[in-house]
């Protein structure tokens, strides 16, 4: 098992009650937050919305409805994972068009740079968490950025 790069989770990239009218609005506002903090390039918004339109990332998991939007590394300045709990669910199309659109209660934006093992380990860990009722409930119950990072990290390093 690769070591998980838990430094990718950052309190400054945890957002609660995030207000967004729809998916475009969500990406516009998230892009502003990420851009202001120097994580992404100007090309990010177009890249991630195009990518999401072609390869949607909504997932109705066993325990939670999530979306894991991501884009190609060339649109990033540095790697990160942003965790967003929207005020009201943001509708994402189901990955691979496998089902109905997913009203995502939690959005995890993966700013991954490459095939770095630790980053993939994080994705796998996230998927494990989203299949687990107790872990998902625990994550949704968090209300501070530090608590969210701590909880994410806790479940991601647990085997």
């Amino acid at each position: 098992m690769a070591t998980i790069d838990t430094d990718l989770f950052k309190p400054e990239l945890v957002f609660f009650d995030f207000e967004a009218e729809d998916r475009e609005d969500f990406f516009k506002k998230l892009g502003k937050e990420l851009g202001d903090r120097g994580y992404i390039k100007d090309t990010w918004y177009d890249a991630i919305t195009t990518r999401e339109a072609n390869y949607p990332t909504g997932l109705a998991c066993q325990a939670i409805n999530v979306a894991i939007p991501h884009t190609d590394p060339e649109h990033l300045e540095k790697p990160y994972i942003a965790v967003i709990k929207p005020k009201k669910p943001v509708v994402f199309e189901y990955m691979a068009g496998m089902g109905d659109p997913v009203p995502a209660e939690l959005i995890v934006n993966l700013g991954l740079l490459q095939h770095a093992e630790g980053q993939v380990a994080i994705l796998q860990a996230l998927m494990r968490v989203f299949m687990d009722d107790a872990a998902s409930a625990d994550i949704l119950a968090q209300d501070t950025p530090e608590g969210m990072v701590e909880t994410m990290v806790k479940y991601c390093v647990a085997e």
Partner: protein
Amino acid sequence: MKKIVLACGSGIATSTAVAQKVSTLLDEKGFKGQYHIVQCAIAEAASQCADADLLIATTVAPAGITCEFVSGLPFLTGMGLADTQQKILDIVSK
């Protein structure tokens, strides 16, 4: 030797996560050394699949593939995972 192509939008994130789960599954079931996995972006899948036995993707099946196709989504969501695993094992045992 079975060739399994694993594809997602970019060939980076979800395909890697699924690839590791698929190889764990196959190794556990005794197929170690009898298969190899090629990862790619879905745009390259059709050409990669020309000589492949199985395509597993986290996107819709691309047009023009000639090998078997299995969705990799159950490895991400947990929904229908047992069926998907069985389907992969059946294809690899052929």
